[in-house]
């Protein structure tokens, strides 16, 4: 750290980061303070503080139902994308075969194309088969980015596991099923857990796909929140803020849990952390 004085560039970087943080904090605090405020017109702080906006938001927006739908959608999406994605990742990690690049492309495309682009044709198809507006439709739509996500994050993870371990198990007479449940399963568990949590965060935050496919009984939190801003009738700004605060608080909780399991910087390249 001898270079501190010699490197003015660092100070500029820290100043920019600090500026970003200050404004970000101001932005978040504005919403949180308002969600607890009674009336706030042009002064530095609201006239008084209250918690009744939270009770209002909970009741008005039927948050218990919305949260239940969100949880069901997220859990089913996780279960299906892990069940489907992990075996596919295994095959991609262990075998090289003609057409592998094409298969990889198929798994990359849904991540490369913005949700709203494929979401519109997908919603059209779902309307045709009468699945749009149902929880099933929302789950199906959310599988599109989640399955490739699990495949792409699990492939490098599986590549790290020495194939000799499986070979040894097979030599000792283990069948494919027991190789999967007793050898690979436990070794892959941390990776599966990490991928699941990231799918959870993505699904809970996925606005476009849910927005395009959800009906009145199948909205998730993020869509309910958006709709509340546009809802007919006079909607108190504070109660929208209260709901936004609930949403962000739950996302933050999920993300902090996720960060305990995965180092975010290792999603792309795996690095040995020097601590």
């Amino acid at each position: 750290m001898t270079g501190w004085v010699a490197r003015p560039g660092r100070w500029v970087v820290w100043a920019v980061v600090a500026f970003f943080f200050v404004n970000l904090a101001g932005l978040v605090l504005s919403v949180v303070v308002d969600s607890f405020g009674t009336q706030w017109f042009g002064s530095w702080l609201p006239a008084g503080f209250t918690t009744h906006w939270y009770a209002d938001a909970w009741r008005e927006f039927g948050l218990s139902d919305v949260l239940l739908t969100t949880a069901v959608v997220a859990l089913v999406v996780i279960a299906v994308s892990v069940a489907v994605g992990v075996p596919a990742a295994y095959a991609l990690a262990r075998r090289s075969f003609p057409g592998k690049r094409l298969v990889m492309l198929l798994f990359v495309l849904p991540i490369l194309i913005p949700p709203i682009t494929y979401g519109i044709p997908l919603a059209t198809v779902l309307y045709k088969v009468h699945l749009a507006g149902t929880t099933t439709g929302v789950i199906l739509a959310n599988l599109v980015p989640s399955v490739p996500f699990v495949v792409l994050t699990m492939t490098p993870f599986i590549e790290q596991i020495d194939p000799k371990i499986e070979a040894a198990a097979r030599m000792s007479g283990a069948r494919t099923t027991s190789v999967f449940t007793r050898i690979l399963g436990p070794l892959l568990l941390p990776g599966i857990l990490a991928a699941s949590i990231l799918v959870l965060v993505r699904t809970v935050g996925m606005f476009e796909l849910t927005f395009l496919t959800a009906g009145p009984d199948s909205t998730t939190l993020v869509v309910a929140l958006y709709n509340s801003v546009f809802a007919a009738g006079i909607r108190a700004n504070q109660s929208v803020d209260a709901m936004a605060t609930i949403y962000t608080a739950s996302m933050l909780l999920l993300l902090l849990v996720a960060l305990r399991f995965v180092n975010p910087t290792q999603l792309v390249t795996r690095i040995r952390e020097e601590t």
Partner: protein
Amino acid sequence: MTAATAARPALRHRLAERGIDRTLLLLVPGLLVIACLFLYPFLYGLQLSFAPRRGGVFANYARFFGDPYLRDTIWTTLGIALPATFINVLASIPIAYVLRGRVRGKRLLTTILVVPITLGTVLTAQGLIMYGGPAGWLNKVLTVLGITDQPLPLIHNYTGVLLSLVITGFPFSFLLTLSYLSGIDPSLEKAAATLGANGVQRFRRITLPLLAPGLAITFCLSFVMAFSVFPSAQLAGDPANETRVISIAAYHAAFEEYDYSMGSAVAMLMAVVMLIVIGLVMAWRATLYRGATGGKG
């Protein structure tokens, strides 16, 4: 008979040698999901876009390019998405460069930089409207400090959407850049330093060339996010005029006019524009060095 039984294991063997065996069956469920939920709807949408309500095969596309209100959404979207992506990627380089080494509180700083991912577009938009609005804290502070005498117009316009995309998009580019940068072996720079290269030279000649392919990927992924901007353009922008992005046009056609054919056509055009931009970036990337980065793993 004997020939057939002899050929059979041989074929299986030959296939297995090329990597085709029963393990590949594990790919089937995943591919089925993608085929049914991604490929089929996409092709269906493509076909639907050529079957307009009125007119010939290309009527939807002709209408899109003939109507300035629709056609200009492409430029509006690019005009928002490209600057936002450049800001996010360029800003993340120096910050990731500083945070790559051993810095006190690195984990905490990284976490704080990642937090905006959890904000969601609604809280970001609400926050921008309240914080950056005419009576918001930002304009109050600026007025008190005497920097401006009237509130800056930061919301319900182009600036509002751009700020919203930077706030939600920056953490993502930062994470990607940081991980690519961490994959470059610091001893390469140390070697350059022993040869007398100063900081700027080391960055320009060593780090940047090794980082560039990763930056291309970061640019593409950030651009995909910014290009599909929908909720923030509605909430923090001026969705009827200045920030009428292409996704608003697509949504409007499909779900407000119930013209799925037109909606699909706009969605296909979105995909085309996006793939052109990504194709250009990847073509540039192909000209770069892509060997080992001396990475730590």
